């Protein structure tokens, strides 16, 4: 894998509010989803810990272990509250 690679990230609910953006393109230095969340959490002061988040890539839930690929669309899903 060539780094940095570009991915797209969308924010929802409390993370959208805390980031102040719906979505953005990011250049990432590693293919590790967990590392990406921790970096964003620190940079933007996210109030949710990584344990409260469920990752999704390309409109499907996925494991934290899934490696990122160029062009991936990432969403870090906060605890859901439908119904």
């Amino acid at each position, binding site marked *: 894998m060539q780094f940095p690679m570009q991915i797209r990230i*969308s924010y929802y609910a*409390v993370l959208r509010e805390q980031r102040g953006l719906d979505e953005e393109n990011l250049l990432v230095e590693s293919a590790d989803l967990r590392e990406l969340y921790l970096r964003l959490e620190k940079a933007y002061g996210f109030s949710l810990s990584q344990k409260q988040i469920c990752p999704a890539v390309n409109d499907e839930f996925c494991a934290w272990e899934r490696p990122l690929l160029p062009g991936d669309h990432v969403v870090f899903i906060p605890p859901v509250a439908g119904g």
Partner: protein
Amino acid sequence: MADQLFFLSARPLEMAPPFALPPSLGALVTFDGVVRDNNMGKPVVRLEYTAYPALAEREGTRILREAIARFTLLAACCVHRTGVLEVGEVAVKVWAAAAHRGEAFAACQAIIDQVKERVPIWKRETYSDGEQTWVTCQHAGPPASP
């Protein structure tokens, strides 16, 4: 996903079941989830639902397919609101159609329980003192293993 069974709607949910009722139908259970005027002891004046549409429709449709198989339903559907809702408005509707009432009641309950647990929809409540908060006390979001 072909044959979508879970839908998001930005408009009020005032509709009949969105599927044809077959002659073998013996029971149709409908659930309406309604915006309540309080939550955890705080007076709620309105709330706002926001969704991740692509994944909400996929995961919701998976929930309905699982219920159709598990409870031998004739048909099932769920529609969830997005946007700002006032107290008394319908936030979510579930329909479960079966040959007999037992399956229809059980399926309707299972569907709404799973929707609340698995579908990426979020709720921001506004209280009578003007305070707003994202409701995050329920579930972590990931799907249960099939």
